[in-house]
């Protein structure tokens, strides 16, 4: 049934459990004792609307550990702890492991015929009553197919998401979702089946590509509602031994992969639709002094001086002229226009698709340009309040939408249309 291959042992365990109303799955290995204690505490605070529901708390166990299913003695149909074994080995890359575990949790929810599945990050930052209530409300009460988080992050956080993933995903698939690649999200039972059945693409290194729930919903179930919930959660994302360019290549490469495989769909999408939002927006902690942008600008200038032979193969002449103009500006005047940044990423997506040069090289050569955009954003956002920064991000996303005809033309006729 599903592309996710659960172990025979896990299937037997799931069959013994039967079915569930909600599966709350942790996308990564966690300490079982801590999880049980926190889950019991959280479950006690969920409120009366949850007491009639059968909730399964599932998390993957390290390879070799025997999964144990335990039922709460006093409430046998209310809460089940389900540590399950998972055959796919984590690749060690930041997002690849998380996506693989998310797929496993969704596969398990599909196996249990759950009405809703809430996937949480392995740092358990979102394992609190309020996020669970919001996710469950959006799926069970408001009939959302997919619910994505709206994190309360600072102006200088989540910049790869704000600068590339969110606006590109919105321009392509027409859904105004702020976090298309998230640690925490929720899906309806039907959507779990779709997500679990999906065969993951192979990335450049032979591993499975990342899970993009918004893309799957937009392309395979366009009638489903995609909602968002405000979460007062901050994930501490550590890239481990991977540097920025490697993580950026992994994430952006995966988005380009989805773009290529869903080209028939996104070429028909025009404009974008707002997504319903639930929950109160949490207050933002002050961001303090803006970070120093000099190292980023130095990286951008170093890239311009050295990577011209690569950028010339990817970017059209007018973009290169614009970049040359930027290099001559004083650091305090440095600002990368939204249109320029959007067209740069579009051109890199095209180079990735056309294999103008090795895909690894295409993604590697994007990092200095991204750092240039980050420096520009920090300089601009330092003078803005949180509300103004949000408006500015909305303006950026609209600029990306306006660039979509350019992307379409070059995607369809790469040789005929090259400004």
């Amino acid at each position, binding site marked *: 049934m599903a592309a996710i291959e659960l172990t025979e042992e896990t299937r037997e365990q799931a069959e013994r459990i039967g079915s569930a109303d909600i599966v709350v799955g942790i996308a990564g290995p966690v300490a079982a004792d801590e999880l049980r204690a926190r889950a019991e505490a959280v479950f006690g605070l969920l409120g009366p609307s949850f007491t009639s529901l059968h909730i399964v708390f599932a998390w993957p166990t390290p390879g070799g550990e025997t999964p144990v299913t335990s039922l709460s003695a006093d409430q046998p149909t209310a809460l089940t702890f389900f540590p399950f074994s998972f055959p796919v080995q984590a690749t060690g890359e930041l997002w690849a492991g998380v996506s693989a575990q998310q797929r496993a949790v969704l596969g398990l929810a599909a196996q249990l015929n759950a009405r809703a599945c809430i996937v949480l990050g392995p740092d358990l930052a979102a394992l609190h009553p309020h996020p669970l209530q919001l996710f469950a409300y959006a799926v069970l009460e408001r009939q959302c197919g997919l619910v994505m988080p709206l994190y309360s992050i600072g102006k*200088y956080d989540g910049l790869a998401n704000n600068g590339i993933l969110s606006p590109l995903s919105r321009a392509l698939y027409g859904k105004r979702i702020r976090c298309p690649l998230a640690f925490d999200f929720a899906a309806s039972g039907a959507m779990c089946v779709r997500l679990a059945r999906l065969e993951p693409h*192979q*990335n450049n290194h032979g591993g499975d590509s990342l899970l993009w729930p918004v893309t799957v919903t937009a392309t395979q179930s366009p009638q489903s509602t995609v909602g968002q919930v405000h979460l007062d959660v901050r994930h501490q994302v550590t890239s481990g031994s991977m540097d920025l*360019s490697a993580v*950026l290549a992994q994430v952006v490469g995966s988005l380009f992969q989805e773009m290529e495989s869903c080209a028939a769909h996104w070429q028909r999408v025009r404009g974008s639709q707002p997504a319903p939002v639930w929950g109160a927006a949490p207050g933002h902690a002050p961001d303090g002094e803006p970070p120093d942008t000099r190292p980023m600008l130095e990286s951008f200038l170093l890239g311009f001086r050295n990577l011209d*032979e690569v950028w010339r193969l990817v970017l059209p002449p007018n973009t290169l002229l614009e970049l040359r103009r930027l290099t001559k500006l004083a650091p305090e005047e440095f600002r990368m226009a939204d249109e320029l940044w959007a067209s740069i990423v579009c051109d890199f997506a095209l180079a990735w698709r056309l*294999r103008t040069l090795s895909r690894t*090289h295409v993604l590697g050569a994007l990092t200095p340009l991204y750092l240039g955009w980050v420096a520009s954003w920090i300089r601009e956002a330092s003078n803005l309040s949180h509300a103004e920064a949000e408006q500015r991000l909305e303006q950026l996303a609209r600029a990306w939408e306006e660039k979509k005809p350019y992307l379409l033309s070059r995607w369809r006729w790469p040789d005929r249309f090259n400004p």
Partner: protein
Amino acid sequence: MWNQVEQSLHSSMGRAMESLARLLPGILAFIVALLLFLFIGWILAWIVRRILAAVGFDERMSRTAPTMADWSPRLAPSQLVGRVIFWCFFTAGVMVGVSAFEAGSTENVVSGWILGYVPHIVGAAVLLVIGTVLARYVSRSVLIAAVNLNLSYARLLSIGVRWMILVLTGAMVLDHLDLGSNIVELGFGILFGGIVLALALAVGLGSRDLVSRSLEREASRVAEEQQPERVHHF
């Protein structure tokens, strides 16, 4: 005296024309064999490309062997297979043409030597192509990685790597062709030994302070990076 000169010129011209007339059938046979094989190779490559396109070979390869595209980014795998088939037929055409040349002429010394040398030429050509592709790919990888590591001497490093691979490839090609093998080995040894010695002397004597400053800078950068970052990309 002029009569003797005229006579010797006539006789030498006659001998030359006679030799050419003896070679002509062989040359013609060589050209016909080569053209025939080129035509067959072109047709076969076209048919194979069409068959591979029909069975979705490119899509399957991009899923199962994505690294292949890294080495030949501009060509789709089906085009690559087509080209390999074409050039195999070209090589076979040259070899058959040389045999035909031998059969069509009374001279067999040249064809025998060429036939014996063809494997060397083919091997050297393969080495040259692999070396050039490898040099371009590795130097570009080094350049991008060095820029992303903020190394100011990224281009120098990339050019150095490229030329090192090209020089190594050149030496291997000449060695494979049996051209001045002793000189090539000697020259290559001297060149590389010289580079390593020069670097060792530069670091050990002249650039000691520069190296220590560079190491200090790297150490302080590590200490800076260990502080919590104020910008979060993810």
